[in-house]
């Protein structure tokens, strides 16, 4: 039986790790908050500044999940899966890219006009090479996440799965990520749709 070993949230310009606020910054723009959050987590990763907002949010969430225990210290790259979902796909960046086309189209924005790029950025950073999927649904859907992640975890190959919700449009942002592992210490929350609903709230 797999269990949820880590979870995090990012909303209202606050990072929450295991339910506890670890960084908040209300003033400035969302971009200011995201860049300041990287500094707060003491992560030297210059490519972060080139990412779009969805990728930055996913990157920060993933970092919180593995900060104290890097995934590849326990698993082969192919044993870790990634399943993400959101409501607005890459619309936040699509709009910014469209604005740039009115003068000179930005290649750096164009490369982020796909929803699953956030998954790519997380995989590059964390060294994940397992199964991956990205769903677009009207709202956070714990039943869908639970069902699909359980299917992925049912394979012999997958030993762990990073999963959750990474959504952004304009200033509105909402992240819930969790790490599911087959081998885990006793007493960890069971992976059920109800548990996901509870941790997301």
């Amino acid at each position, binding site marked *: 039986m797999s269990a949820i070993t880590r979870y995090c949230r990012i909303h209202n310009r606050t990072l929450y790790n295991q339910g506890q606020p670890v960084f908040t910054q209300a003033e400035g723009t969302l971009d200011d908050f995201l*860049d300041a959050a990287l500094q707060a987590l003491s992560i030297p990763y*210059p490519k972060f*500044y*080139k990412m779009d907002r969805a990728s930055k949010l996913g990157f920060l969430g993933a970092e919180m999940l593995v900060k104290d225990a890097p995934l590849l210290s326990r698993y082969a790259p192919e044993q870790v899966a990634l399943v993400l979902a959101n409501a607005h796909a890459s619309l936040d960046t699509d709009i910014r890219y469209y604005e740039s086309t009115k*003068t*000179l*189209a*930005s*290649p*750096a924005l164009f*490369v982020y006009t796909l929803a699953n790029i956030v998954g790519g950025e997380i995989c590059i950073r964390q060294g994940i090479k397992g199964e991956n999927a990205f769903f677009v649904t009207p709202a956070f859907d714990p039943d869908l996440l639970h069902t699909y992640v359980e299917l992925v975890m049912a394979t012999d190959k997958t030993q762990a799965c990073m999963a959750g919700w990474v959504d952004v449009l304009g200033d509105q942002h909402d992240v819930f990520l969790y790490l599911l592992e087959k081998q885990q210490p006793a007493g960890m929350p069971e992976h059920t749709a109800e548990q996901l609903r509870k941790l997301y709230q």
Partner: protein
Amino acid sequence: MEQLMADLKKQIIEALNLKHLKPEDIGDDQPLFVEGLGLDSIDALELIVLLQQHYNIKLANPQDGPQIFKSVKTIAEYIRANQPS
């Protein structure tokens, strides 16, 4: 030439989101790609856009890019030689 290179460094940092760098961190002759600043192919496209936006220069032959974008100095020399009067 010095002023042009100073302007270029600020514009490169801005256009390529190199927020971890200050203009003085970029040497005039420092390679911009791979072993230098570590820029990639998307950054190269942004540099082409930068030349067009700030200096009204369209790269006639994109294959010249690696030579032109070797360093801040080579970009400045290309601008000097090709900027419309």
